[in-house]
């Protein structure tokens, strides 16, 4: 009955090793998972399942020693199939002792977790991407103008990220003007202001210009009290004023449709000045 269980179990490769780590028994799942047939692998050392770098580090010997000392050893890591391909496995090695306590060998249970690991990595990557998008959203608002609405506190890490992403997007979109909106930034300290000044300097080196918008009264007061010199930076209080400025920098202006020669509607249009 027990043998039937070992042979029928689908998800677990259940094998036995002797005290030296040589394979004694093999089950169908082990064959499916690792590729060897029973007669190919029985008698061989179980280090065949490990990547070369693990064998060099003596990982296989260490695992047996831990299992012998503590009764069992559990690990998650890369293992190697017969064809050389790798899979992510959960491995547990249990020391098997007889009634006198003499070590007779080891039981080794291996489970293929490659799929789970891939899913985990995918989720992690997606979360990271969302986080990056959310921390520094870069929105093209007009040909040649990109908008970066910043919300929340700016720490050094985030500002560093902002700088890299902003410069990247400016070159990618070939935009000579970037509007940096800090309406959603609660406070500004000396360090943050310094970071912003550096970012603006870097943008200018690329050949683009930054318009800093959303400078509210409290922010303006703080900046002056801290003695931060932003006189070289184009600043505007509202985003709309900033956009008008940005369009001006690329020689565009917003004019009423009537003035532009269309008499039908009171809406506004954008045309080259």
């Amino acid at each position, binding site marked *: 009955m027990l043998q039937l269980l070992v042979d029928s179990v689908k998800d677990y490769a259940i094998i036995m090793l002797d005290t030296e780590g040589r394979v004694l028994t093999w089950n169908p799942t082990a064959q499916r998972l690792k590729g060897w047939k029973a007669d190919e692998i029985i008698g061989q050392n179980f280090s065949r399942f490990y990547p070369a770098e693990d064998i060099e580090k003596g990982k296989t010997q260490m695992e047996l020693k831990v299992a012998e000392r503590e009764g069992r050893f559990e690990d998650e890591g890369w293992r190697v199939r017969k064809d050389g391909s790798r899979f992510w496995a959960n491995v547990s090695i249990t020391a098997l002792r007889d009634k006198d306590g003499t070590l007779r060998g080891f039981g080794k249970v291996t489970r293929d977790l490659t799929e789970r690991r891939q899913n985990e990595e995918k989720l992690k990557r997606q979360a990271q991407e969302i986080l990056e998008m959310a921390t520094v959203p870069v929105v093209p608002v007009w040909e040649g103008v990109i908008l970066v609405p910043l919300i929340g506190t700016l720490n050094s890490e985030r500002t560093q990220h902002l*700088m*890299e992403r902003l*410069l*990247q997007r*400016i*070159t990618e979109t*070939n*935009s*000579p003007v970037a509007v940096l909106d800090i309406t959603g930034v609660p406070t500004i300290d000396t360090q943050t202001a310094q970071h912003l000044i*550096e*970012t603006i*300097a*870097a*943008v*200018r*080196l*690329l*050949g*683009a*210009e930054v318009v800093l918008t959303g400078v509210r009264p409290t922010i303006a007061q703080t900046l002056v009290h801290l003695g931060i010199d932003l*006189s*070289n930076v*184009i600043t505007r209080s509202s985003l709309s004023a900033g956009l008008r*400025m940005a369009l*001006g*920098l690329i020689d565009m202006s917003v004019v009423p449709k009537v003035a532009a020669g269309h008499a039908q509607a009171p809406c506004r249009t954008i045309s080259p000045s």
Partner: protein
Amino acid sequence: MQNNISVIKVRDILLVTMPPDADDPTISALQEQVLGAMERYQAQNVLLDISGVETLDSFFARTVSETAQMVTLMGGRTIIAGMRPAVAVTATQIGLTLGNLETALNVDRALDMAATPRRRKPR
């Protein structure tokens, strides 16, 4: 003199392209070549394309900014085009600025800039 800096005169513009791996002698030669070409061709604008340059050191930055000053003294105007994002980040981190130099995203935009009279950046 044998080096990789290309200086091409297009109308009244000198298009200067920096090689990706410029060493110090090459950078020193840049100044000579640009100023010499300005005098020879009576060019008004110097357009320095650094889109190939992957690293920027203080010597290069200083040479460029000095050369620009000299060009101004000779009645010309310098536009730096195509600086890579990574180079700009490094440059600001080590505190380099190119002073009042004009910069452009790429050569195309720099040519547009050169065609319009220099204007003070609005504040």
